[in-house]
């Protein structure tokens, strides 16, 4: 199997892989830069007392709730209803302001973590677990597996490989190695950029994050992203054995993923949406990556995704996808 994986990695020495990596790195650098610029504008607010719950209450409290007199209504049930509605609206506004303040604090902390080379892996992990990461994995799957049919090499390969499932597993492992390598390269690039970010958008000492803290933020995300990336690779491999060409692999995998993400638009399907699972597993909730992420958020009023349903969904998807791809590949005629 090691020789087979090595053969697959040798095939990856091609312009397509370089182009995917370059595109991903540019996107990651741009995204990280935007995060820094946005956080830089928020520092003043976050560091002020206005962003604390008390400060928010105070600024919101300056607005008077209406009275029956100010409404021109006679005291009684009708007036009470109007005042209750106004109180509800006021509370909702207060909640939204608190959430926004929390998001702003997280954005500043994220930027602070990002200014430390050890924490720079945070955005790399986010991005490989985003739609951008999915696109990269699908492009690699299209080139490395779907391309075997498009290029006509599949027949030659299968006359060399003893068992088809071994080739499929080798493809999967090599794709995972390629995507994880992409993650590490992105981390390395962002670690180098961290010094630039620190110089361009200096943080007040109170907002700075130690190397240990930065790493303790990034490391779990990096570890969790492996499962998401593996799932994307399985989806890419499945699309390849279904469509049996490079373009079809990309279109089916990406199209299927986008349709699956749109499940969040149907309340009954929200919890079986892949976006819900990934968001839950990676912790892409309000105040985190959600402000800039490419996964659809859950509809207002629904509980935010949590890690365990996300883990269960992704593991189930990985296993089912792998079995489906293997069965399909075993039964295929190479005609």
């Amino acid at each position, binding site marked *: 199997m090691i*020789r*087979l994986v*090595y*053969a697959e990695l*040798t*095939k990856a*020495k*091609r*312009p397509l892989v370089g182009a995917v990596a370059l595109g991903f790195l540019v996107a990651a650098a741009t995204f990280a830069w935007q995060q820094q610029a946005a956080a830089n504008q928020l520092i003043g607010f976050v560091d002020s007392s206005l962003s604390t719950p008390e400060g928010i209450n105070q600024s919101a409290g300056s607005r008077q709730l209406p009275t029956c007199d100010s409404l021109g209504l006679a005291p009684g049930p009708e007036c009470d209803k109007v005042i209750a509605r106004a109180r509800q609206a006021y509370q909702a506004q207060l909640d939204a302001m608190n959430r926004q303040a929390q998001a702003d604090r997280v954005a500043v902390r994220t930027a602070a973590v990002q200014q430390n080379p050890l924490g720079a892996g945070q955005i790399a992990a986010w991005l490989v677990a985003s739609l951008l990461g999915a696109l990269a994995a699908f492009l690699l799957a299209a080139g490395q597996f779907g391309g075997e049919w498009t*290029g*006509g*090499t599949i*027949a*030659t*390969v*299968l*006359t*060399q*490989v*003893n*068992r088809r499932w071994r*080739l499929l597993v080798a493809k999967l492992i090599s794709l995972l190695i390629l995507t994880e390598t992409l993650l590490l390269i992105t981390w390395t690039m962002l670690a180098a950029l961290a010094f630039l970010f620190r110089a361009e958008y200096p943080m007040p000492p109170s907002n700075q994050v130690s190397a240990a803290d930065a790493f303790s933020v990034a490391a779990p995300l990096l570890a969790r992203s492996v499962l998401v990336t593996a799932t994307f690779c399985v989806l890419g491999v499945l699309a390849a054995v279904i469509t049996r060409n490079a373009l079809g692999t990309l279109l089916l995998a990406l199209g299927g993923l986008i349709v699956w993400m749109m499940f969040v638009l149907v309340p009954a399907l929200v919890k079986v949406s892949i976006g819900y699972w990934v968001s839950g597993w990676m912790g892409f909730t309000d105040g985190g990556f959600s402000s800039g992420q490419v996964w659809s958020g859950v509809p207002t009023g629904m509980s935010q995704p949590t890690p365990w349903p996300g883990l269960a969904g992704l593991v189930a998807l990985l296993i089912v996808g792998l079995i489906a791809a293997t069965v399909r590949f075993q*039964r295929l*005629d*190479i*005609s």
Partner: protein
Amino acid sequence: MPDREAIVCRGLTKRYGDQTAVVGVDLTVHEGEIFGLLGPNGAGKTTILKMILGLVHPGAGEIFVLGTKAPCPDVLRQAGALVETPAFYPWLTGRQNLQVFLDSGSPGPPDAVTKALAVVEMTDAADRRTKTYSRGMGQRLGMATALLRNPKLLVLDEPTNGLDPAGIRDFRQLMLDLSASGVTILLSSHLLTEVERLCHRVAFLSRGRVIELRSIDGLAASNRLRITVSPTQQAAALTALAEFQPQLEAPGLLTVDGASGEQVGAVLARVGIFASSIGRERGSLEEIYLAAMSEKRLDDPPRLR
């Protein structure tokens, strides 16, 4: 030639939707034999080869390869294959392509790539990217791929496609050398003269069926007699041989079917004609092939001659 069976196909059938590609093919290839599959495009040759190699799943029937019922991946380790136009990874060199294919399966000899390149005379071009190769060079590299693991069995689909005359000659010599060393070779080809020069036996296929099995050595058995007489005596000879329905091919040259040399000699002697030569003409495989294809004996069982 040893009489053990390298490949046995029984009742092999394959359908693609409503299209029938192969119907009830029975075929036996002996060890050390060079066996040719002949037939027009769409006759089912490639499908049969792919079923033997495990690339296509038979709809019905069974296949035994080197004594083991297929599909048996371990047995296929001992087979080398060239299926249709060989394709390579164009961004890799010829040597890298071979190494990738070698690494994709069971280990071969340490110098397998170098040896295979040398056998097909591609050493000089081995370090060029395959996207720069001509079709003939691709075919040679495909042959090298098939030879990587010193196979006991070679399955070759149109192996001479794209080869120039020198390449075809080299290929023929390579096949003969491999056969002499005990390698069994099953090939399909449109080049009938090459098949005739290489193969011990051939099968004619039409519309997915084997319509005839022939031994190349036995080709003469069904061929005609060529009789040379003096042009002044040809009219009398035609009359005397009327019962054999003679044909006048050229002045003084007659041919008859279905008669022995002794019979013809005796008939001519009775009328005082002494032929300057009576010989059995060896028919070409092409003639026999075209005759078989035109007879449309699609429902007849295959005949072994």
